[in-house]
């Protein structure tokens, strides 16, 4: 195995060349062999030069280029044993460390293997490249569809799975106890996700980038400033120029967590911003600004915040400068920002959807545009489609079930917060509502329910795994719905009538999940489905499998 250490992460383009070089190596070799052979036959060489001057020039140039690349390429580390062994240099602010692994040979081999497995029956999926003007935000956009287009043809089959890795005293180890709780992000050929490992008395997290086609790790990072990341519940977002990954840190009891900005190419820390609370909220990006909520920690007895009740903040991505923060009770929800207005759910002790008018001048703070009360906390992400805001809510949470479960889905007028309709649910709707042809709602009672967008009336309802709660948001394509049950099943439904098309187990079969923490929302991109699991690592499914 060959390991290259990227000492200067700015040359992120090099691996692509190397990858292409690996693929073309045999061609180079054949040409070079012919050329060398000709060197020992001067007459023949002259004849060929006269007959095919272009070909020989090309071969010669290629050899020179390849030689130069090898000459200029940084030397492998002394301990190059296939394990991650270095930390990259500090970030621009001089406060970050990052460890990077790129094994392009493995990338190539894995891609070949993946193509051989998945490509026999399924068409090669196209991974779209997001444009610079469209950041990737939680669930792929304000509609929270969890799909960037394209259908999956044929039964699902596992293309690859990946377990996060961590740096164990200089040795990179696979962490099979790591859970992927949040939803992935995709940019170009890469898929980004984050993990959570419960290792008492703390939790640990890693953010990683993988080759979307092979699952091969491109980079991973689990610490900054020598401090291990806490477990991640927040989902990553990618800036519109594709340069930066933004993610919140920490689980619910955590304090002193960071909003983290990484360089998407390398995983290197661009900046971090520490807040006194935790950030389970998934960031929303508009231009050079990221918006996110910092949630409260409630007292178990009084249910009141034991410290700060929570706030929403805005940070400039390019330099990490905090632009403003505004108190909102328990904004664990993921916001949406459109037309200088922010929408976010207010959870415990909030029970509302809150809209803020954003300042047009830096250093000013937002003002409250409207506040729409709810019977239950709104902890899930806000969905927006056109001029309507959709939210789900309810009692209970991702771990604990209320003895008297209840939930709702609300539609609000985005301009003034007026309620258009409310549909009561049998249990909480904690995952984002996907606004497709219908509103697809994950319900903790174990159902996936499609609602009429205009009226909130149920159109269909289906189950994945009996009564196992459905807590994560569904991914909705033009034809189908993909949703995950807490106990580790991925259900695939017909969007029109909710017919269950197929159901597969996504945890490690030999190690079924004990905790019911399959709560990662799947993402469908160009014929691939990415989803995190409790025990099966991070997974990619493609079509073309067998029934």
């Amino acid at each position, binding site marked *: 195995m060959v390991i290259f250490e990227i000492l200067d992460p700015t040359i992120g383009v090099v691996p692509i060349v190397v990858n292409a070089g690996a693929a073309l190596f045999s061609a180079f070799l054949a040409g070079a062999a012919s050329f060398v052979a000709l060197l020992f036959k001067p007459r023949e060489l002259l004849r060929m030069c006269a007959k095919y001057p272009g070909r020989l020039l090309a071969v010669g140039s290629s050899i020179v280029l390849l030689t130069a690349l090898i000459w200029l390429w940084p030397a492998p580390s002394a301990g190059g044993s296939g394990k991650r062994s270095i930390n990259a240099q500090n970030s621009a602010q001089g406060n970050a460390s990052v460890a990077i692994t790129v094994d392009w040979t493995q990338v190539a081999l894995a891609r070949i293997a993946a193509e051989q497995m998945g490509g026999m029956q399924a068409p090669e999926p196209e991974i779209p490249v997001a444009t610079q003007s469209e950041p990737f935000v939680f669930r792929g956009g304000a509609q929270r569809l969890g799909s960037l287009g394209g259908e999956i043809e044929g039964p699902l089959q596992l293309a690859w799975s990946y377990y996060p890795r961590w740096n164990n005293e200089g040795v990179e180890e696979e962490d099979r106890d790591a859970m992927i709780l949040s939803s992935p992000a995709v940019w170009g050929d890469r898929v980004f996700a984050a993990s*959570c490992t419960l290792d008492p008395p703390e939790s640990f997290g890693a953010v990683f980038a993988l080759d979307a086609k092979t699952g091969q790790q491109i980079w991973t990072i689990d610490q900054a400033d020598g401090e291990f990341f806490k*477990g991640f519940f927040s989902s990553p977002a990618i800036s519109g120029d594709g340069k930066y990954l933004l993610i919140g840190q920490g689980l619910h*009891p955590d304090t002193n967590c960071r909003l983290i900005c990484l360089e998407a190419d390398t995983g290197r820390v661009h900046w971090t911003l520490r807040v006194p609370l935790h950030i389970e909220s998934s960031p929303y990006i508009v231009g050079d600004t990221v918006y996110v909520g910092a949630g409260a920690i409630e007292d178990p007895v009084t249910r009141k915040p034991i410290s700060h009740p929570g706030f929403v903040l805005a940070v400039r991505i390019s330099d990490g400068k905090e632009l403003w923060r505004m108190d909102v009770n328990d904004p664990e929800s993921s916001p949406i920002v459109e037309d200088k207005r922010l929408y976010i759910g207010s959870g415990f002790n909030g029970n509302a959807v809150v809209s803020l008018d954003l300042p047009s001048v830096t250093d000013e703070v937002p003002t409250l545009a409207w506040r729409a009360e709810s019977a239950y906390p709104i902890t899930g992400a806000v969905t927006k489609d056109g001029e309507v805001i959709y939210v789900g809510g309810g009692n209970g949470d991702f771990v604990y079930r209320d003895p008297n479960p209840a939930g709702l889905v609300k539609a609000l007028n985005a301009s003034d917060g007026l309620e258009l309709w409310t549909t009561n649910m049998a249990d909480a709707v904690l995952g984002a509502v996907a606004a497709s042809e219908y509103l697809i709602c994950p319900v903790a009672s174990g159902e996936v329910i499609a609602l009429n967008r205009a009226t909130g009336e149920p159109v269909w309802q289906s189950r994945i795994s009996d009564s196992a709660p459905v807590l994560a948001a569904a991914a909705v394509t033009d034809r189908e719905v993909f949703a995950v049950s807490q106990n580790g099943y991925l259900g695939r439904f017909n969007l029109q009538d909710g017919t269950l098309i197929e159901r597969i187990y996504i945890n490690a079969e030999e190690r079924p999940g004990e905790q019911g923490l399959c709560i990662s929302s799947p993402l469908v991109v160009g014929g691939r489905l990415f989803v995190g699991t409790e025990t099966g690592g991070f997974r990619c499914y493609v079509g073309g499998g067998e029934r």
Partner: protein
Amino acid sequence: MRRYYFLPLGAWLWVLLLLAPAERAQAVINAGLQPYDLFTSRYSRALVLEVSEVDPSSGLLKTSVVKTYKGAPEQETEVSIQFDASLLGVLADALSDGDFQQGDPIVVFAGRKRAKKDFMLYANSFYLGKIQGPGNWTIDRTGQGAVGMSGEQLNTLAGTWNGSTPQLVRMLEDMATGIDFFPRKAYVQFKDDILLDRLESGITAIAVFDIEGDGDEDIVACSAAGDRVYLQTDPMVFIDATEGLGVASSSTSVALADYNGDGLNDLLAGTDLYQGHFQDNRFHFVKTELLPERSTSKLKTATFCDINGDGFPDILASFVDKGIEIYLNPADAEKKFVDATESMGLNRPETGAGSDAYVTPGDWNGDGLMDLFLAAGDGYLLIQDQDGRFTPKPHEIEFKFTVGADNETGITGAGVFMPIVQSEALDLVVPMEESWLVIANNDGRPEDVTRWGNEISEGSNDHLSTIGADLNLDGYMDLFTVSRAPNGHNRFIINRGYGSFMLAPVHRHYEYVFRGPSSERGGLSSAAGDLNDDGAPDLVVGNSHGDITLIINDTLQARSPIEFPPREIKILEGTHLLQVRVLGTKGVTNARLRLIDKADVVIARRDLGSNVAGGSFGPNRVSFAVRRPDVFTLEVRYSDGLIQQKEVDLTEEQYVSINIDRGEDLSQGVW
């Protein structure tokens, strides 16, 4: 009311709700991180130390290694543990609480995944530290070591384990041999409520009992509007047969037994004693006058109970202003019961005479004679000696049976003797106004272990009475408590084993635990028994609205095998049921059933006639859920000492139902 379950939120994982002050016993279970996880995947070593010496001034703790349960046994046999100077106060507090005493066990998980030198230590509370070198360890944090923004202590480990150290040692032993079971979820489900009947006044007592001996449990409900008897004529078809059976009473309690040994069940409804008759192919009751002169005092409860161990059901009664009275069975069908209250020493103030209180029977000290607990004053644990006299056992347990600002008495405290902390001896669970006390039987010495009971702290309000049954069929006896408030929440508390409890609906694994209104309409009475003959105990609840509700246990149906069962579910899927009906003309009422394995270890015990303190009554049939099916010896000890044994093979069938009889020739009579 403390309602942890409303706690937030989105990503509440494991530790999330554990933000409690530095109390010892904290509710909430961290389903994501249990001792099993620490043992199997988070730490490379698990061992038990024993305290040999402690110096509070220097913070030095000297210990010896007792046993290594995981990881290679270390060279070190002695370990010195130095508390950080900042924790000397913590150590002093622990010492004053009785922790770290010489000879005390300490559980250690060492070799943490992310920091190999880190260890967790549990000595009735968590401590965190580092292994500096062989035999040289330091402690620099406690489980409450995390500090919140406002300086408050955040305990991130209480939900993992907050039981007692000896119980954790026991669990470690079980984990090392793979026989542990400490569920993190409530794997139990009941069907929709079935409203059997609605009477015009509150249902003060319920009996689930096979009255006419056809193999199906019937139901008796007591009410000021008149007692009703519902016979199960077809599977789950109940017919009101009150008049046909000749029952005409309005009672506050009910019990059934064959008091006269004629093979037919008799009925005690309040202070009315009915004798069972079979005439013209018809079973019916005839009221007798065999009780002593009816007291002018108001009856609280009366039940059949073999107090003196002669096999004949006596009557144990409690009166509102008199306390306990006992009427001994004369063992003669024609003679009256004999008031033995005075001769048994129960007319004395020191045994609670004059109290308005519920009385719970059970053989506390295992001598074969019935002992009593009277829920009055500071709590009377009354031990019966060989001469048949009751003497209060001294204790330091802080019972409190007065309710509300007016200190009302006699409206809580109807408890139950049942195996909780260990499988063989009877412990005691007593409800109080909004809580319970779990009293462990420590070789006869009552020990309050409530503080280690986790969500046993999650009481409702106006607790009246508690019954015990293995409602989730995992081998552990669970608790069901009715709240006498008209809209009170009845509480189903799951016993997780190892002295820990779980509030079932909060941790439900299936879609629901209860599905119906009855669980939130309070209760004055309850009884458990297998109504539909599927092997799982069902519940019947009577409330102040006059509702008689059947709550049918659906756990076995919900537990159908699944494709990829997690470990706990796999264990439950492999659990086999043994149901035993005890038959005989005497000694049945308080028969003791024990299931004994090949190593002569009692793996489970059930006692008939336990769930009677609140005035209700259960069947002569019990269920054993066995997680490791094997061939066992079932031992039935009738209350007169007769022992019947039977080998039962639970390896093949998932559900085995048997009858155990005394083996007597009924034609000769037994009187």
